[in-house]
């Protein structure tokens, strides 16, 4: 637990100093909400229909931005080398980065969510809390696979550009499950929602374990 919390602490301290990651994610997420509103110009009933998709597109794109940022701070000044020299195993390094990525994404999403509810004329009630809970699950799955793929993409010549190309095909089940569960919550028909929640949970656990095992190969020289 100690190396994990040390990495999270380090990332939080860096973030408190420059406030770059969360502010850029937040801004980008808001821009997505605005652009989609212009692109679709939804009215009344349509709005509730397309809102879940727009929300998760905003979360996904903002998340990709955050993942790229989280790794680029490690690549500047060879910080990653320093982390690899530190007395902690590679798996803990991965878990630590997942935790800090997850925390930053969650903070940005918690700020985007009320604005989303406001923009799309949804209600601040139990629904709001349920969507927040869903974001928690979906974001965790996204962070688990995103952390290892951002480390892979940082090794390529294209760096940042490579991440969405690798990440989106693999995280489609997460995006799909999150959108479907969010629509179920918004429409009030929560009957089939449990299978989507199981899918998100299962995906997170499987990818967390698999990435924990193979992360060593990604960072070794």
């Amino acid at each position, binding site marked *: 637990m100690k190396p994990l919390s040390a990495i999270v602490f380090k990332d939080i301290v860096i973030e408190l100093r420059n406030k770059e990651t969360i502010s850029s994610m937040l801004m980008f997420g808001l821009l997505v909400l605005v652009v989609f509103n212009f692109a679709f110009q939804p009215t009344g009933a349509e709005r509730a229909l397309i809102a879940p998709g727009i929300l998760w597109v905003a979360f996904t794109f903002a998340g990709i931005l955050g993942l790229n940022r989280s790794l680029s701070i490690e690549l500047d000044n060879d910080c990653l080398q320093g982390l690899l020299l530190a007395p902690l195993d590679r798996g803990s390094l991965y878990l630590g980065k997942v935790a800090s990525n997850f925390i930053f994404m969650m903070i940005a999403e918690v700020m985007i969510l009320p604005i989303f509810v406001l923009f799309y004329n949804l209600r601040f009630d139990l629904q709001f809390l349920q969507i927040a809970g869903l974001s928690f699950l979906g974001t965790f799955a996204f962070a688990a696979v995103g952390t290892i793929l951002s480390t892979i993409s940082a090794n390529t010549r294209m760096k940042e550009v490579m991440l969405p190309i690798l990440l989106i095909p*693999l995280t489609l089940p997460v995006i799909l499950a999150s959108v479907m569960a969010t629509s179920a919550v918004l429409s009030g028909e929560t009957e089939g929602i449990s299978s989507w929640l199981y899918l998100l949970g299962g995906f997170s656990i499987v990818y967390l374990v*698999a990435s924990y095992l193979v992360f060593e190969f990604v960072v070794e020289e």
Partner: protein
Amino acid sequence: MTSRVLGIASLVLMVFALYMALIYAPQEAQQGTPYRIIYFHVPMGILSFVSAYLLGFAGIMFLIKRDLKWDRLAIGAAELGVLCTACSLITGSIWAKPIWGVWWAWDARITLQLLLGLFFIAYFMLRAYLPDREKRAKLAAVFGVLGMIDVPFNYYSIEWWATQHPQPVLRGGGSIDPDMRLALYVSALALTVTCAYLLTRRLAIARVEEEVEYLEHLVHAHE
């Protein structure tokens, strides 16, 4: 040697499979002739999944053994994957136009095939942007393993999301005519042997490519 045997076997089996698919198999009651594309379409769909698992398996073996022969197998598997997903999507579209009236429907299995195809292409993009041979093999292996794990998740998520595809003919439960089933098995076998033949040829080419890369490296070192 294996390659030559596979080549001859695939030639013979393909001729036999064509006979089975076009002449031996009875006409379908509702669709008529267009249904015969399944003898090509269904095996290609199945082989694209086999390629994804082969890619993942080669990745795991490479990470354990660190032998570049597993990386060559991974390249072959991924290229077969691109070929099979493309073939099944194209034949599916050709079939869908007269039967469903549209070239493309966002149906569960089509979407799954498309996604699998995108995964294979992403795999090649990753390889293309990794200059170092050793690192390319290692990171591509990790991505291959992560992609293999994704297949069942994709399958179930898309299955729950929407489906209007004809139910799978092989595990759909006994409704298929025995002659049609036999023809389907024969064409599946023929296409599997053909893919295995292509894979052995690809492995031979990959070995030569590696040698060329090594020799180029030597020449540059002397200059």
